[in-house]
């Protein structure tokens, strides 16, 4: 039987329009804007100044603390500005702006096409190297990877779960990585296993990607080294960390706990490739695969993009912005954010640019809750979204906490399944943020 998580979930049309488009590198051009905070944790501190010449791969901002990540220049050129720049949500944040001049990489980066399979470094050296390369989780949350590879004292990881579910509709960047860079990716998985000193790894892939499953299985046929490919049922949010752990290992991550408490560490498949490149090829995280897609877009693309490239340029490469576009989303349609600034730069964890047609971009007119409890059925975290929404609207934070609003993973299943078009997640997100704030201030006391 095909594995899946137990509770909730929805089945949106997968719309993988760009699945057959091979990854095309985008040559750097113009200027790039590189944010100092592209990860969860403290923003990095710049180590370059205005007017400095930088090479692609050069460190431009240093991690400020343990939960933070190094930032590298993605292009070669001159630093023209270190100032606040509007991000995709219109919020001005600190960034380093580099004017592109040629494409000169640091000499230490190995740009040869060979796959280096032999892992020479020790686990500690691997973790250090990953931290130096500024690798963050490419599944969306952008959590610094070296933190996940250093379990807190007293806790040990027993197995690694590689998240290759790619359950969000439209997204194909992970799929392309799996079909085009399968060997490198498996080396990356082995590096992660070595760093965690564990012998078992599972790669969870939804069954709507049979070619990827086949490709990885054929590579693992001769020598699996503890790596198993696990086909998963196509159901959203199969790639949610807690859902994936439950589907593959049958374990539950307790409320408020980390996956490592259940003996599991989860890394995204894109992260595994970035880890391979960092450890074997000395290449920091400075480019990633971005899917540019949309039903009314003239070309569907999977692009290898330097961090900091404007969104507008990527849309231009995919045939330009159609007149009938109603909404541009950074990420997938379920969890991605609609953007208000088309010139915003991409970030390390940007996985897709999705253009929605006018006709499907508007939300329906909300009406009264009819107590059908579809949101309760759909919630993969066993919450009661209709109740949480009402509590959040009334600012009843104690009740929100006792109803575990902080467990919400913001997957959007509730709002997707609501026949009354209620803005459930909008309010739950608000309540969740306040509950987390209260929890943190209590913990600080």
């Amino acid at each position, binding site marked *: 039987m095909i594995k899946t998580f137990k509770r909730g979930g929805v089945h949106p049309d997968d719309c993988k329009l760009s699945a057959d488009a091979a990854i095309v590198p985008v040559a750097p051009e113009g200027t790039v804007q590189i944010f100092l905070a592209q990860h969860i944790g403290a923003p990095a501190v710049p180590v370059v100044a205005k007017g400095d010449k930088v090479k692609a791969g050069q460190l431009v901002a240093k991690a400020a603390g343990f939960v933070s990540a190094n930032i590298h220049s993605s292009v070669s050129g001159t630093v023209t500005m270190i100032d606040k720049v509007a991000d995709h949500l219109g919020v001005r944040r600190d960034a380093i702006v580099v004017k592109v001049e040629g494409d000169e990489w640091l000499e230490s980066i190995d740009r040869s096409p060979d796959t280096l399979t032999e892992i020479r470094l020790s686990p500690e050296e691997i973790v250090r190297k990953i931290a130096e390369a500024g690798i963050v989780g490419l599944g969306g949350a952008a959590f610094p990877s070296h933190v996940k590879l250093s379990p807190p004292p007293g806790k040990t990881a027993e197995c690694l779960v590689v998240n290759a579910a790619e359950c969000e509709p439209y997204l194909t960047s992970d799929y392309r990585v799996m079909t085009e860079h399968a060997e490198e990716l498996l080396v990356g998985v082995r590096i992660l296993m070595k760093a965690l000193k564990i012998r078992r790894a599972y790669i969870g892939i939804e069954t709507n990607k049979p070619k990827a499953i086949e490709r990885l299985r054929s590579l693992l046929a001769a020598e699996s080294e503890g790596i198993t490919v696990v086909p998963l049922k196509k159901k959203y949010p199969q790639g949610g960390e807690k859902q994936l752990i439950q589907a593959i290992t049958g374990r539950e991550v307790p409320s408020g706990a980390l996956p490592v408490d259940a003996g599991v560490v989860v890394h995204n498949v894109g992260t595994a490739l970035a880890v391979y490149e960092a450890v074997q090829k000395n290449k920091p995280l400075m480019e990633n695969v971005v899917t540019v897609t949309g039903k009314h877009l003239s070309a569907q693309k999977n692009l290898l993009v330097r961090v900091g490239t404007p969104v507008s340029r990527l849309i231009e490469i995919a045939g330009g912005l159609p007149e009938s576009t109603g909404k541009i989303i950074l990420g997938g349609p379920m969890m991605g*954010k609609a953007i208000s600034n088309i010139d915003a730069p991409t970030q390390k964890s940007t996985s897709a640019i999705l253009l929605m047609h006018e006709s499907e971009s508007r939300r329906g007119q909300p009406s009264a809750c009819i107590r059908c409890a579809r949101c309760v059925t759909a919630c993969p975290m066993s919450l009661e979204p209709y109740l949480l929404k009402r509590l959040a609207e009334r600012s009843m934070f104690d009740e929100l906490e006792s109803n575990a609003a902080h467990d919400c993973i913001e997957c959007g299943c509730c709002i997707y399944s609501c026949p009354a078009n209620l803005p459930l997640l909008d309010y739950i997100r608000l309540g969740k943020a306040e509950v987390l704030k209260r929890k943190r201030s209590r913990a600080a006391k």
Partner: protein
Amino acid sequence: MNTIAFTILILSSLGVSLAVILYFVALKFKVYEDPRIDHVCEALPGANCGGCGFAGCRAFAESFVKSADVSALYCPVGGSETMNKAAEILGKTAAAREATIAVLRCSGACELRPRTNSFDGAPSCAVMSATYAGETGCGFGCLGKGDCAVSCTFGAIAMNPATGLPEINEELCTACGACVKACPKAIIELRKKGPKNRRIYVACANRDKGGIARKACSVACTACTKCKKVCPFEEITIENNLAYIDGSKCRLCRKCVPECPTSAIAELNFPPKKITEKIVAGEQAQKN
């Protein structure tokens, strides 16, 4: 006949015996409450708005009667008059505070602050503010969804559909501060009411650099420092690319108002300027 007599007898004896029981129960479980709490409560406005920081007027009255030091307690709705009345009952001295009123530190009406996108989510400023910067290029100004109007228990705030901004009714505003708490952008401020309700304040909260602020909104404060230079009392401060006039220190000379190149400084309830010969001469000189 007998039936009627028995009924009356039984019911009246039942009534008398229950009354006796109730009398003793009331004696036994009597809770003493300071009668002054009632008196103070009567003196308060009774709006239960929560502006004082208590759950309602009764809770405030209780605290007012019980605490020895009442200098921190103040009912913004009733003002000094109510507070003196309440203090008189107890023979205490109430804190004297200047009357304040809510002002909106944003004047970015629709036509002055062009929209760059449209928000499709729940019609709430709090939700919108948690989602992104807003529908215009200004990430600091009014979001226009009316959380302040909803929060106002006195009906003093109404959204103006033409400007997209809330309008504060000076007659009805009691400075309870509910709107200040409700606004996620923190652009509503309680300011000194001023003599004859006259006030001068910077009606902008944009902390972006001048050029960016100006591009987003034609009435944005660009921190050009002109107002600061012209202020004879040096009461205008400029911090984070934003001018701020200290309401408690401003002497309402109005010199800064015409000086502002973007008209970001608002003046309220002043009589129209007299057209003196000097001003006319000045205007003619400008034309020439």
